[in-house]
């Protein structure tokens, strides 16, 4: 096997190959190649390079032999350099590099095995074909060739573009850009927008590439950066200072960077946006910038941005800040003349941009594909644009585009032009007439309306502001006059006409009204005769004929005169013409009746005649009826009269103010029986009189008189009334009628008020009176009234008011006092006197008959103690018995009876039965000397009494305790020394007090300034009469000499326990006190609470 030379050769190659794999073969020669590196740009060929020492021997060459795979023989090339271009093979490549000297002798050989992984794919360095800039938009445009033809198939390529600026080449942006290589060379383009003006500084661009070949297992690397390119024309500093951007338009809210460029030797002092200064950003040595955020809308001339330079310089620019155009609103298109279509719209939100920056509008019609540039006034709220009407085109599809430097918007509208006809205002409008009821109208409308019909509206206004509309349809014409006529006008009336038009079939809008034209129709004869009436003079010789002027609508012109004629059996007896404004005339009848005819005349002719007979029929027993006021008129009714054949006439004469009354009348048909009469002259509260005439075959007959009010009011005045007569219990009141002019209505009655009251009372109205009495007098014939059941000697207030349906009139009042009741007074005096006399007589008789018994019992010559009631009385007291027993004679055994003489020069009267009337009655008002009252000292047994009175104050003179019996007939009470009065505490005791005890208490009360209340507490028993009554001094009383406080009346009949008079002294009765005029004996007997 080893003998086979080819086999041996193959083994030798394999061996060498293995050596090449394992070693980087070095033969040890310095010329031996080493560090083989291979790169490829196109995956087709690769460039390999190596290192080798060649210093010693010049003229070295290299022989490179490479084989891609075993079956192929190696390919050898020679090169002088240390690099070689060899094809790229899949898998690995064997490369043998032999260093040859100048003579071609191999010096060293090196063999390499190069796997694909060790080959680098580095694309060719890209070249920028073009770099341009749009300074207005701060945009850079870059173009380069992708060299796609290098590769024979599609590949993904990535590009990296680097933007640098300033002199220091600071990276502004690094952008990746992917593309696909198509096997052919393509020009790629890319743009980039700066956020600061490109003029502000220098910009540089470079680019590199990366090929992404998925099947290539070697290293894939970025290409080299392309040569740097500078933004053209701005790579040098400016010739003069400037601020950028210049006159830029931006949206509200944008962020804008401004830069100020200046010359060498200058420096920037500050930079402002408007009035606000911003911090400077230095871009380079000849440029600084400011950044303004969120700019707001500018004024119309824009916002100034300016920089102040040192030493002397001012540079600036203007920024216009606004909005993009709004969508055109309310787009509407119509034609006025069928020549143009006028589209109108509202621009919406203002853009705040003007003149060359303002919104521009273009109207585009899609069907005809025509467009029109619209000239609009930005300041007007509504814009218009005209588009020509095309023949044979009805449908138009409009799109209105709005654009400005900040954006655009559009609106669309599809219309049928025949349905959008808005005619021009009718022009050359004329009105004429040649009759009293018709008018001819003519007007002109510009435009071509042959293809449509027109509908015109004629407005007719008369002088009463009544409006009437007439519509007229007519065929359209081209720039033509249109005519119409109106009829049914009123003669001699002034009208104002206007006209407007629209399309008839498809109404869109009315045109504006034409100007108004006035027209007055011609006169015509009056439409009817005037309303007439006549009145005979009282004697009957003359007849006054009245007529009413015709209404303007009836007169049909200016009434010039009235012709009044008098006919008798169709023969005109008299006729005369009465010029206006007279509306009556007198005709002398001369004893004959005739038929009166009145005709109204104007320039156009005469009215039909109005006729009335002059004959009056006699009337008997004419009644006057009352009419009913309706508030705004007078309702009158009358009975139907079958003899009335030609109607009724209601006549009245109404006067207004101071002028004489004006005859007026109204006519009603024969079947009428009532009417409401209204007149502007009627006034409320005024009485009007009417006369109703019936028109009968032979003449007029007065049927009845009627009086009434339009509106009844309350009487204007109160009726005058007087008191005719008064007695103690009645008043007769009499009143007068109210004058008719003051009634203001039909009087319905009177209301009479009366109530007790003084003239000085503050009450002004009877409505305030609580106890008033009122009487409604509806009988108007009654003119007086007697008021009964009154109280005597009492003041009464009387009031009288009249009333109508309209209300109650004012009040008139007076005061009257009734007379005193004399019978009552007499009775009041006589009865007490009679009773007193009878009692006195009876008492006297009894006393006389029983005088012996009385004497024995009360005044024996020698008192019998056992029978003495006085002693019994004393005993009761001693025993403290408070029972109501007086003078009860109980057995009482005296211990001793001692009779002693008193030391007083005046006999001291001791009377156990005597009490001071003051004690039970009113105390003296002056309170003077209360202690001058009697001091009753009961010295007679029993011992208890003695004990009570035996303890007087020390300084008091010794009071006697003796009992002195005296004759009652001769006793009198001596004055007692006040100092002798024992001080005894006042004891309040209810119930009956023995009279002998009372003086003690009474004296004490007086000394304590008693009050009435005290008395009430003290005294249960009351004296029979008022103490005032008894205060009067009796000349018979010895006490009265000494004291006013104690009144004795020993000469008068008195009760057993009292010494007061039962019958008051006569002189007291004769002097009664009249304090109150209201009090009377009548009152006393009537006992009324209000007395």
């Amino acid at each position, binding site marked *: 096997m080893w003998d086979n030379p080819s086999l041996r050769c193959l083994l030798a190659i394999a061996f060498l190959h293995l050596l090449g794999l394992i070693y980087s073969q070095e033969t040890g020669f310095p010329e031996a190649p080493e560090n083989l590196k291979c790169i490829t740009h196109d995956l087709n060929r690769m460039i390999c390079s190596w290192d080798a020492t060649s210093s010693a021997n010049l003229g070295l060459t290299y022989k490179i032999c490479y084989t891609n795979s075993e079956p192929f023989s190696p390919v050898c090339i020679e090169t002088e350099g240390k690099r070689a271009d060899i094809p790229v093979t899949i898998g690995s490549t064997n490369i043998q590099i032999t260093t040859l000297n100048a003579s071609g002798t191999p010096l060293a050989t090196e063999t390499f095995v190069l796997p694909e992984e060790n080959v680098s794919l580095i694309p060719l360095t890209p070249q920028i074909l073009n770099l341009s800039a749009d300074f207005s938009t701060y945009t850079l445009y870059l173009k380069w060739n992708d060299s796609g033809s290098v590769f024979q198939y599609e590949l993904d390529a990535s590009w990296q573009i680097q933007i640098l600026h300033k002199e220091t080449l600071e990276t502004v942006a690094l952008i990746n850009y992917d593309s696909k290589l198509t096997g052919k060379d393509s020009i790629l383009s890319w743009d980039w927008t700066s956020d600061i003006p490109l003029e502000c500084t220098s910009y540089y661009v470079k680019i590199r590439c990366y090929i992404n070949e998925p099947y290539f297992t070697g290293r894939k690397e970025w290409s080299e950066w392309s040569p740097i390119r500078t933004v053209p024309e701005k790579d040098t500093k400016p010739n003069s200072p400037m601020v950028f951007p210049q006159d830029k338009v931006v949206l509200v809210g944008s962020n804008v960077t401004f830069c100020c460029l200046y010359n060498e030797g200058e420096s920037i002092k500050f930079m402002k946006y408007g*009035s606000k200064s911003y911090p400077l950003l230095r871009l380079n040595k000849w440029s600084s910038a400011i950044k303004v955020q969120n700019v707001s809308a500018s004024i119309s001339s*824009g916002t*100034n941005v300016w920089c102040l330079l040192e030493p002397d310089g*001012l540079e*600036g620019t*203007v920024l216009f800040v606004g909005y993009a155009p709004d969508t055109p609103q309310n787009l509407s298109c119509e034609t006025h003349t069928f020549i143009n279509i006028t589209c109108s719209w509202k621009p919406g939100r203002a853009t705040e941009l003007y*003149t*060359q920056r303002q919104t521009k509008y273009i109207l585009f019609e899609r069907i005809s594909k025509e467009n029109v540039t619209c000239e609009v006034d930005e*300041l007007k709220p509504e814009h218009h644009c005209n588009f020509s009407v095309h023949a044979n085109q009805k449908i138009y599809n409009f799109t209105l585009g709005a654009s400005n430097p900040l954006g655009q918007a559009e609106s669309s509208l599809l219309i049928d032009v025949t349905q959008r006809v808005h005619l021009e205002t009718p022009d050359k409008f004329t009105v004429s007439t040649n009759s009293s009821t018709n008018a001819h109208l003519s007007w002109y409308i510009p435009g071509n309306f042959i293809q449509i019909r027109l509908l015109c509206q004629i407005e007719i206004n008369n002088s009463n502001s009544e409006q009437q509309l007439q519509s007229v349809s007519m065929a359209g014409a081209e720039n033509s006059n249109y005519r119409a006529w109106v009829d049914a006008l009123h003669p001699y009336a002034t009208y104002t006409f206007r006209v407007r038009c629209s399309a008839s079939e498809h109404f869109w809008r009315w045109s504006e009204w034409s100007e108004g034209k006035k027209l007055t129709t011609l006169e015509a004869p009056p439409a009817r005769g005037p309303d007439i009436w006549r009145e005979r003079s009282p004697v009957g010789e003359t007849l006054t004929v009245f007529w009413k002027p015709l209404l303007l609508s009836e007169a049909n012109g200016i009434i010039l005169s009235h012709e009044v004629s008098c006919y008798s059996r169709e023969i005109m007896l008299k006729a005369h013409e009465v010029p206006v404004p007279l509306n009556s005339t007198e005709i002398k009848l001369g004893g004959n009746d005739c038929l009166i005819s009145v005709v109204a005349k104007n320039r156009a002719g005469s009215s039909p005649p109005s006729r009335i007979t002059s004959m009056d029929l006699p009337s008997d027993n004419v009644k006057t009826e009352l009419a009913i006021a309706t508030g705004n008129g007078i309702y009158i009714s009358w009975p139907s009269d079958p003899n009335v054949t030609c109607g009724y006439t209601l006549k009245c004469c109404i006067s207004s103010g101071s002028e004489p009354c004006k005859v007026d009348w109204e006519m009603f048909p024969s079947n009428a029986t009532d009417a409401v009469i209204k007149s502007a002259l009627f006034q409320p509260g005024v009485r009007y009189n009417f006369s109703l005439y019936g028109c009968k075959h032979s003449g007029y007959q007065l049927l009845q008189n009627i009086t009434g009010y339009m509106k009844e009011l309350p009487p204007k005045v109160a009726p005058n009334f007087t008191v005719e007569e008064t007695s103690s219990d009645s008043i007769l009141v009499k009143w007068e009628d109210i004058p008719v002019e003051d009634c203001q209505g039909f009087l319905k009655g009177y209301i009479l008020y009366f109530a007790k009251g003084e003239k000085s009372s503050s009450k002004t109205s009877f409505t305030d009176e609580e106890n008033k009495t009122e009487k409604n007098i509806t009988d108007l014939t009654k003119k007086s009234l007697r008021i009964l059941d009154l109280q005597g000697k009492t003041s009464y207030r009387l009031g009288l008011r009249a009333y109508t349906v309209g209300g109650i009139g004012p009040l008139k009042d007076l005061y009257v006092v009734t007379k005193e009741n004399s019978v009552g007074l007499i009775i009041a005096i006589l009865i007490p006197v009679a009773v007193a006399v009878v009692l006195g007589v009876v008492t006297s008789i009894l006393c006389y008959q029983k005088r012996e018994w009385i004497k024995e019992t009360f005044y024996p010559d020698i008192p019998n103690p056992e029978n003495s009631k006085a002693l019994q009385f004393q005993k009761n007291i001693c025993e403290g018995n408070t029972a109501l027993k007086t003078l009860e004679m109980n057995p009482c055994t005296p211990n001793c009876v001692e009779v002693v003489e008193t030391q007083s020069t005046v006999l001291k009267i001791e009377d156990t039965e005597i009490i001071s009337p003051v004690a039970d009655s009113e105390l003296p008002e002056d309170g003077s000397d209360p202690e001058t009252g009697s001091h009753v000292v009961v010295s007679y047994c029993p011992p208890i009494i003695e004990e009570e009175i035996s303890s007087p104050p020390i300084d008091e003179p010794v009071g006697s305790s003796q009992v002195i019996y005296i004759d009652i007939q001769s006793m009198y009470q001596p004055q007692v020394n006040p100092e002798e009065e024992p001080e005894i505490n006042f004891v309040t005791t209810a119930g009956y007090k023995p009279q002998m005890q009372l003086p003690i208490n009474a004296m004490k009360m007086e000394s304590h300034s008693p009050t009435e209340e005290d008395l009430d507490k003290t005294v249960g028993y009351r004296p029979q009469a008022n103490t005032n009554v008894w205060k009067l001094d009796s000349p018979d009383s010895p006490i009265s000499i000494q004291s006013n406080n104690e009144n004795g009346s020993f000469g008068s009949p008195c009760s057993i326990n009292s010494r007061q008079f039962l019958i008051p002294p006569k002189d007291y009765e004769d002097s009664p006190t009249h304090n109150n005029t209201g009090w009377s004996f009548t009152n006393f007997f009537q006992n009324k609470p209000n007395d």
Partner: protein
Amino acid sequence: MEVLTVDRANLLSSTSSSSSLSQQEVATKIKQTHRLTVLLKHCSEQLLAEYVRHQGEPFSSPDFQPPAMAVPGLPSPSVPPEAWLALSDGKRLWHLAAAYATLPGLLGSVRRQQAELNPLASELHRQLEAAARQCLGLAGNLEGIMGALELPGPPPPSSSLGGPPTSAFLAKLTGYHVCRLHRDWAMRSHEALGLLRTKYPL
């Protein structure tokens, strides 16, 4: 306010026959022209105030003093006040005539620029138009006086700002300078005619 109307045709015709004008007529003309300068002075101040009111900051700022700017065609009244008064009447009138030959055109240009920048400022437009008319009138009057006094006339004017301004800011700034120069020239003309009036009393 006094309104003066100037009939340019009459003025020109009077110029042609200037040699025949009497001293009295010259004095009357000077007096009329002086009264026109009074009006012009007042109106020019109003115009400047109205102009800056519509231009925004910094023009509307009361202390706005931009660097002097040459307006093409319009001579600046650069002669100091003392020197101005020291000039001969003929020189002064010559300077005035040269300025007022240019101002109407410049004011018209400003009016057009403002119509573009401030379409809503109708009062400013009205005042600019009135100022142009007044300047035109004064130019005619000056021409008449110079003719009467047999003084040489000014060179023909270049009556507008040339092409449209390159930027809105520049238009505003140029307009401001025109209005300010208009005011300054009005003051100078008022002084000059005042002096002349004293020399040619009625």
